């Protein structure tokens, strides 16, 4: 299979399907979109199977000097592989979630989703600075349309806010990219990763990238577009927004800010830590008082993303691995939670928490799935988020005990708002007649939720499957940034006894 341009094919499948969708009937577009996303999932599985763990850093490389000033360069490492897998895994589920919920303009909706998939895979696979920017930025157009056309009542305000907010962040990054390309005389990301930029310029470049990624992430206080966008977007739009698009910010920090500007990352780490600590506590408290389910989960996303950023800027292996695990885990769990909200929203057409109650009585299967994802979101051992949050916080502890202390309170608050939500929706008396009439999960809905639940438990029970592909990349990254590593305040000392249990069995 060497020489088979699998990444290009993964881009081409949704591209062709997206155009074909416009010419089909509503039902035809649904099936075509499902088939195309499943083909991409199959290709993704093939990609993972053929990915040589421990092999070259960049694999499946393709390069064509098509565009004069920059090239069509694709290639993936372990980080990109896992995030591409997350995208192709969630995509068929999104199509399934919109199967009956979307009734108007189905063809265009499916087209927009397929284009989004294409752009997400492209963003993670791009190995050229400007190709990355094109994919990264182009995602705005389909998301703008998805929120604006198929969104809720206040969709127009939300779509503008989403578009202009993220555009402003991105153009600042674009300026920095122009400077970098001119300084390094290359636009190839692997080469730029080994370019040492002057320390005094790094700060500016770092801030420019920060402007873009902090908005995408989103970090407090740049998060205000997120609750609006989530509340107004259709269910599948929320899933893809929370599941994959938010990961673009974290991926950006991981791919650009840390390895390209290590000194600036260390100097400005306090900014990341400060904003993240505020985010964890503040947004968790805000989530506690929400009456709208989607808003609650949106705020919880901001809190979880803050755990990602502190992990990344811990400058050590645990922190970075943990950050990646939180990204993957959160992608699955928050996506699934939005699906859970979508399930009952489709039945009652309201997201008001108070309108529900006692669902455990008439919807036991639903209650079970919702429970799995709730405890996963809280970060109970055995679920994906536990692994990520534990590693992240363990990594940060070596740098700053205070930040760890503050952020750990967020875990407790997280348990508070999620369990409070679960209690109000699922437990209690079944008093309302329209709620009593709601049927339990259909087969289609089970088919959507079950794979995510399986993946969440897999990640929680055997995280090695997900840690292995990125182990070498984490090692490369930590070696690269080691020279700028900040001194920690925890002063850990080497243990004296045997520590056999920590070592993973080889």
């Amino acid at each position, binding site marked *: 299979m060497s020489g088979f341009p699998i990444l290009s094919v993964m881009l081409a499948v949704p591209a062709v399907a997206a155009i074909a969708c416009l010419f089909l009937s509503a039902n035809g577009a649904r099936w075509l979109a499902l088939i195309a996303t499943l083909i991409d999932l199959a290709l993704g599985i093939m990609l993972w199977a053929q990915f040589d763990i421990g092999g070259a850093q960049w694999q499946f490389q393709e390069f064509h000097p098509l565009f004069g*000033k920059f090239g069509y360069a694709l290639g993936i490492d372990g980080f990109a592989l896992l995030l591409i897998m997350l995208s192709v895994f969630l995509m068929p589920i999104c199509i399934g979630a919109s199967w009956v919920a979307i009734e108007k303009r189905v063809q265009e909706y499916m087209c927009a989703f397929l284009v989004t998939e294409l752009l997400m895979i492209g963003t993670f696979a791009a190995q050229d600075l400007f190709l990355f920017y094109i994919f990264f930025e182009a995602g705005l157009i389909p998301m703008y349309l998805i929120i604006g056309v198929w969104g809720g009542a206040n969709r127009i305000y939300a779509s503008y806010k989403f578009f202009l907010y993220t555009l402003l962040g991105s153009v600042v990054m674009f300026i920095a990219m*122009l400077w970098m*390309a001119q300084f390094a005389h290359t636009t190839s990301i692997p080469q730029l990763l080994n370019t040492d930029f002057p320390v005094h310029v790094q700060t500016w470049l770092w801030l420019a990238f920060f402007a873009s990624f902090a908005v995408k992430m989103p970090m407090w206080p740049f998060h205000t577009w997120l609750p609006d966008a989530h509340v107004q977007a259709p269910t599948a739009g929320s899933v893809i927004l929370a599941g994959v698009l938010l990961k673009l910010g974290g991926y950006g920090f991981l791919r650009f800010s840390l390895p390209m500007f290590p000194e600036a990352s260390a100097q400005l780490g306090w900014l990341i830590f400060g904003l993240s600590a505020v985010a964890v506590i503040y947004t968790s408290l805000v989530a506690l008082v929400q009456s709208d389910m989607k808003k609650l989960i949106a705020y919880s996303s901001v809190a979880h993303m803050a755990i990602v950023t502190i992990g990344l800027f811990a400058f050590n292996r645990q922190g970075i691995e943990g950050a990646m695990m939180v990204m993957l885990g959160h992608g699955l769990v928050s996506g699934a939670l939005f699906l859970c909200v979508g399930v009952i929203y489709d039945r009652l057409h309201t997201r008001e928490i108070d309108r529900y109650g006692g669902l455990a009585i008439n919807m036991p299967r639903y209650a079970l799935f919702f429970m799995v994802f709730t405890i996963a979101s809280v970060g109970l051992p055995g679920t994906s988020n536990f692994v990520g949050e534990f590693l992240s916080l363990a990594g940060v502890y070596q740098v700053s005990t205070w930040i760890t202390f503050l952020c750990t309170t967020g875990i407790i608050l997280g348990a508070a708002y999620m369990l409070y939500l679960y209690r109000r929706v699922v437990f209690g008396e079944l008093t309302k007649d329209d709620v009593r009439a709601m049927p339990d999960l259909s087969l289609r809905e089970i088919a959507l939720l079950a794979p995510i639940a399986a993946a969440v438990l897999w990640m929680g029970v055997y995280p090695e499957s997900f840690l292995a592909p990125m182990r070498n990349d984490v090692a490369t990254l930590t070696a690269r940034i080691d020279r700028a590593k900040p001194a920690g305040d925890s002063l850990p000392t080497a243990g004296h006894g045997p520590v056999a249990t920590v070592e993973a069995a080889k």
Partner: protein
Amino acid sequence: MIASLLMTLPEEILGTAALLLMLVAAWGGPGATRAISWTSVAALVGAGIALFGAASSGGDAYDGLYRADAFAAFAKVLIYIASGVSILLAPNFFQRTAGDDLRPEYPVLILLSATGMGMMVSAGDLLTLYVGLELQSLAAYVLASFMRRDTRSAEAGLKYFVLGALASGILLYGISLVYGFSGTTLFSSIATAYGAGHSMGLTFGLVFVFAGLAFKISAVPFHMWTPDVYEGAPTPVTAFFASAPKVAAMAMAVRVAVEAMGPATDQWRQIVIFASLASIIFGAVAAIGQTNIKRLLAYSSINNVGFALVGLAAGTAEGVSAVLVYMTIYVAMTLGSFLIVLQMRDAEGQPVETIASLAGLSKTRPWLALGLATFMFSLAGIPPLFGFYAKFAVFWAAVNAGLFPFAVVGIAASVIGAYYYLRIVKTMYFDDAAPAFAPSEDRIEGGLIAVAALFVSPLGYLAIPLLGAWSLTAAKALF
């Protein structure tokens, strides 16, 4: 002499065709319009083919008065395409709107204007330049007031004429100063004079020449005529104004700046940077409040000229090449947008121009809406559409020329522009449907929209190697 005639072959073809067709029009009357239109397009194609010969590589003709180089050829190709499209899209519009058929003078005037534009971009001497400019402008004034029964059209023509005359006066004043202090009107000799040392008179001349040029490309602060003329002129004429003369004036400005005043780059760069930033910011801010789509596109053209000037400000071959790439993509975007504006007409076939009438277009005419959305996102410079590459090329050149702070302000200001382009997409996609437009049967217009939309779609990136190499060859002809 023969060599010079061969080098000016495209202008000879167009000029002769225009004069002959004028006679045909005089005898044939309105009935001959169709034949004249097609013959005019054929003449433009013929002139385009003639560019392959000595006209694109011959060098100096008529002792340096006229230059037949790759740069001129590049600009002329764009001018001829834009002029041809402007002729093709006219008959339907006039038939529906004015109630009577298109008068046969329309294609003739466009041919004359194209001849003038060819002279403008090929000028090697300030006097050739001025004659070409006036030929182009006089034809354009008549075109602006072509709907004689419509007061808005007459007003547009008059406004254009008065302000255009003022601009020509300013330019001529600058030319006379340059001549007075350098003793020549030939570009190459003027460059020697600027290189010889600082002279207050020459600097004044430079400022006035640039003011006149800014008028012609409608850069801020000399843009005031643009929205009024664009709104009042018949839509096919507006499409013409926004494309061909823009390219010609921009190419002329580049040639004057580089070839005649190259040694004084540091002096004119300040003017260009100011005009560029002012155009980008003013064009974007003023467009926000517009309710008429033609006015909005007028401000959009001001905004775009600002971006194209970024490449000129770089003052390098790379920058000039970026200007040419920018203008190529701009012509496709702007002609495409105006072609769609031409489809906007109510049930009786009368044109409507309010942005509000676009509401819900994505439901009533999905392909038309998709086309306009493509042009709007492209004009806003959002990747992956081709308009992004245009902006990328000019800012790349500016950064490479060391104008980093300038690029920062320009790029940041492009976000303001995104807002009003988004507003059109929002109106078409998010709002409830307004009364549908009358359906269009015209295959030519539909085909042209499709071609333009495909060019600015991501497929356009495939044209980059060709476009890049060709524009760089063209730009190097100036250095």
